[in-house]
């Protein structure tokens, strides 16, 4: 080996090691932020956590209290969001996968638009629902909040339903159709049964996404200092309360905001990890 080629060889090796080191450093960089954020949230949240969080309503400025009304409001609006977004999403996803084979251009444009909705800024969807369901009615309401959350669930469920149904082996459709079963029954009783874990995962991931969602609720459900179970009135939600309390100058409000942040983060992370684990265990076996 000549000197020149030895030098070149060494340079290539050094470049390679350098690139690998940077790759490891980049990964460490990403994990560093994750650890920092989770540590801060859990540390502050655990200190602020108390039974009162779940039994008392949000206090006036500087006072003591809990988050009961906000937790209840979040629950109500998330349930509304899933009830609105999931059925529509399952229906649209089924259409894309099963009933649009003769209109490929139309099908692809719906998929394209759905993919855009999937990453569209939630604040924009909130503004849309504001003009749709707040301005026209004249007042903020939990209804409007639920609709805006439903619009965030919708594309997630459309996508997972579409993808899961496409994974169902064709022999299942053919076997069922050959028995003379109408297509809607094939879809509901055969395909949905095979695709249920995938679709459920999509719904759970959609729920995980909306449970920490703040921006659209600012213009739709607004906030409410008091307990309410009337979905036609403004309603508190944990994320909006966190926003309001964290931006305030009061220490007791900050503590409540941390407690809320802890509850929301724990819920969202457990839900998304759980949904993925459930999916990995029950996914459709494409090898068959």
């Amino acid at each position, binding site marked *: 080996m000549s000197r020149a080629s030895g030098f070149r060889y060494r340079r290539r090796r050094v470049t390679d090691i350098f690139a690998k080191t940077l790759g490891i450093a*980049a990964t460490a960089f990403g994990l560093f932020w994750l650890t920092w954020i989770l540590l801060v949230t859990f540390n502050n949240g655990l200190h602020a956590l108390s039974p009162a969080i779940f039994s008392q309503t949000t206090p006036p400025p500087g006072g003591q209290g809990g988050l009961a009304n906000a937790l209840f409001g979040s629950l109500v609006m998330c349930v509304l969001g899933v009830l609105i977004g999931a059925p529509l999403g399952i229906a649209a996803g089924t259409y*894309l996968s099963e009933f649009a084979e003769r209109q490929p251009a139309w099908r692809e444009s719906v998929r394209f638009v759905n993919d855009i909705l999937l990453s569209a800024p939630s604040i924009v969807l909130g503004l849309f629902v504001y003009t749709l369901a707040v301005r026209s009615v004249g007042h903020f309401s939990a209804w409007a909040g639920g609709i805006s959350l439903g619009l965030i669930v919708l594309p997630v469920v459309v996508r997972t339903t579409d993808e899961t149904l496409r994974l169902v082996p064709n022999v299942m459709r053919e076997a069922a159709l050959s028995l003379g079963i109408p297509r809607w029954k094939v879809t509901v009783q055969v395909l949905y049964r095979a695709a249920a874990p995938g679709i459920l995962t999509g719904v759970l991931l959609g729920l995980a996404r909306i449970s920490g969602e703040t921006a659209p609720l600012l213009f739709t459900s607004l906030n409410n200092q008091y307990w309410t179970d009337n979905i036609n009135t403004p309603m508190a939600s944990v994320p909006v309360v966190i926003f309001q309390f964290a931006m305030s100058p009061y220490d007791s409000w900050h503590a409540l905001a941390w407690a809320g942040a802890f509850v929301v983060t724990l819920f969202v992370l457990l839900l998304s990890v759980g949904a993925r684990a459930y999916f990995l265990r029950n996914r459709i076996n494409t090898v068959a």
Partner: protein
Amino acid sequence: MSPLPATGVGLSLDDKHIKARAAAETRQDAFFRGLLFAAAALVLLVLGAAAASMLWGGRQAFATFGWNFIVSDEWDAVGRQFGAFVPIYGTLVSSAIAMVIAIPVSFGIALFLTEIAPTWLRGPVAAAIELLAGIPSIIYGMWGLFSFVPFMAASVLPWVNRNLGDAPWIGPLFRGPPLGIGMLTAGIVLGVMVIPFISSVMRDVFLTVPASLKESAYALGSTTWEVVWNVVLPYTRSAVVGGIFLGLGRALGETMAVTFVLGNAHQLNKSLLMPGNSIAATIANEFTEADSDIYLSSLIALGFLLFIVTFIVLAIARLMLYNLARKEGR
């Protein structure tokens, strides 16, 4: 002997029954199909209606201020003069900072997850990076305000001021009081937020490169880096750009995290250390305070601008990603 009724009467009865049932099933199928079609059409409708309703809601601002709405930097709620240059500038600059951080880091993570890490480590690390995407943006905001901003103010910004403040060309960008809140902080937080999105796309598309291509390059004596740079990247180029645009779309529209750390100041500043504003943060902060029709209309018009820009960016991202999918024959 046939168990079926052999008489003409019996047959015609059965026939009628079968026909009636077939007709009912056709009707049910058509109904079911129509229902599903309506749901799919709704997806298209939502996007179209969102754009139309915001254009309609913002018409007063567009009509009153015209081009000045975009180019003027005067945002005066009392004098009812609204020019959105400051938030537009803030959105673009903070997203640019985010991309400067997120692109190389995401590439490094994708490199680590596909080529460097031992196989047993890949799953857990990928899941941990994905967790970063699962954390709600309000949590980023709170952490940013209470932990990251003080850290920037105490440790990072004084250093930046000392070492970069007097540098030629870029000096003015890094000169200013170390408030902690500001464009640079917001850009870094945004960067951290979009890393999981870009890196997971990059990792997924890197995995689609046929093993035979990579193995051929290895067989010719290439190093890992040379395989990635000369084989993997050219093969996945359009999808990698697509992933980057996907992250950019996220950064442009991100609201809560930015609202906490950007400072909500309607001033144009050369320095990245000074507070600014972004489109999404302006809407989130001021929407409930809008006391006049023109104020509200201006905020909705801002939403419309944000919608158009993110739509274009996300559309480019999707088209780039479809390119690779088509090449794959999927």
